């Protein structure tokens, strides 16, 4: 068998040998992935079903409900399929930081130019 040696910095090796339970956990199993897929499908079916109920579409709860369900699906995929729930917290910061800035920018733009425009005059 081909055996070779690689030199790594102390800090890197220390992290590799450090107890990782605080920052990283084992990834989910196959059964978890199937369950997540089922939940995502059910939510999507619920969204499309809601779209075809005229009374619900006309109600004030339609848009918030769809936004909530969409955010839920987004979070489920990010946490379970992208393993953000189990990975190092630096990855969480790298993802949620720009996402937070982007969401604030979206809200600001919607207030300035979009349907959330505030009539000051």
């Amino acid at each position: 068998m081909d055996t070779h040696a690689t030199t790594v910095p102390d800090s890197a090796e220390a992290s590799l040998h450090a107890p990782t339970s605080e920052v990283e956990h084992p990834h989910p199993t196959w059964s978890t992935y199937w369950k997540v897929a089922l939940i995502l499908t059910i939510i999507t079916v619920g969204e499309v079903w809601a779209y075809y109920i005229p009374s619900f579409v006309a109600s004030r709860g339609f848009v918030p409900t769809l936004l909530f369900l969409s955010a839920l699906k987004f979070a489920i995929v990010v946490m379970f399929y992208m393993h953000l729930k189990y990975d190092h917290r630096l990855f969480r910061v790298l993802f949620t930081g720009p996402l937070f800035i982007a969401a604030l920018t979206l809200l600001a733009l919607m207030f300035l130019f979009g349907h959330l425009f505030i009539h000051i005059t």
Partner: protein
Amino acid sequence: MATAAHTSTVVHTSAPTHHHYTTLGLDSRKVAIWAFIGSECMLFVSLISTYLIYKGRSVIGPLPHEAWTDPSTGQVFKPILNIPVTSASTFVLLMSSLFMVLALAAVQNKELPKRTRGERILGNSKLWLFMTALAGTTFLGFQAFEFTSFVHEGLTIRRNLFGSTFFTLTGFHGAHVTAGVLWLCTMLAIDYRRNLTAKDSLLVDICALYWHFVDVVWIAIFTLVYLIK
């Protein structure tokens, strides 16, 4: 003992590989893909913002959810969005994410013994990589069908504000899906060439992160563009 030295030696029993560790002990490539995904979030939110700002401000049709009659010709344009077709393509893309995690799990658990037929199927990375690429290609087929039918119904990127913002947003997403499919095909080719092992799981993990990101972007687009009137 050697542990007193500033650097220490780790013995591997595999083909030579190059590790790219950050000072946190994390692989630089994984940090890079997360940073890239963070920047991509900002790109897509800017495109979504543009769509939402111009939503409902088109002077002429066709319109996404309402019928429109051309006053000069009397021609009636139906609501242009086809929700059943897009729902099907959304389902396909969601399933592609499932196939992708199964591909990653298959590569990570490559060395584990596969006793039953079910375990052999779940542990077949080639099958799941192929299924993911196939689902991605199917999604692109749905998008090509949608774009073609829109153009036949009179909606082009130059027709109105809806057309401009819609084609830009979904076109950018489609381009990302295309890049993802090419990436998946590359991983599949590597798997056929030299069988991906648990040591290659990071390569598949990075590809999977990109693919799931493309999926979550579509989750947002499907609700904001297609379902909310």
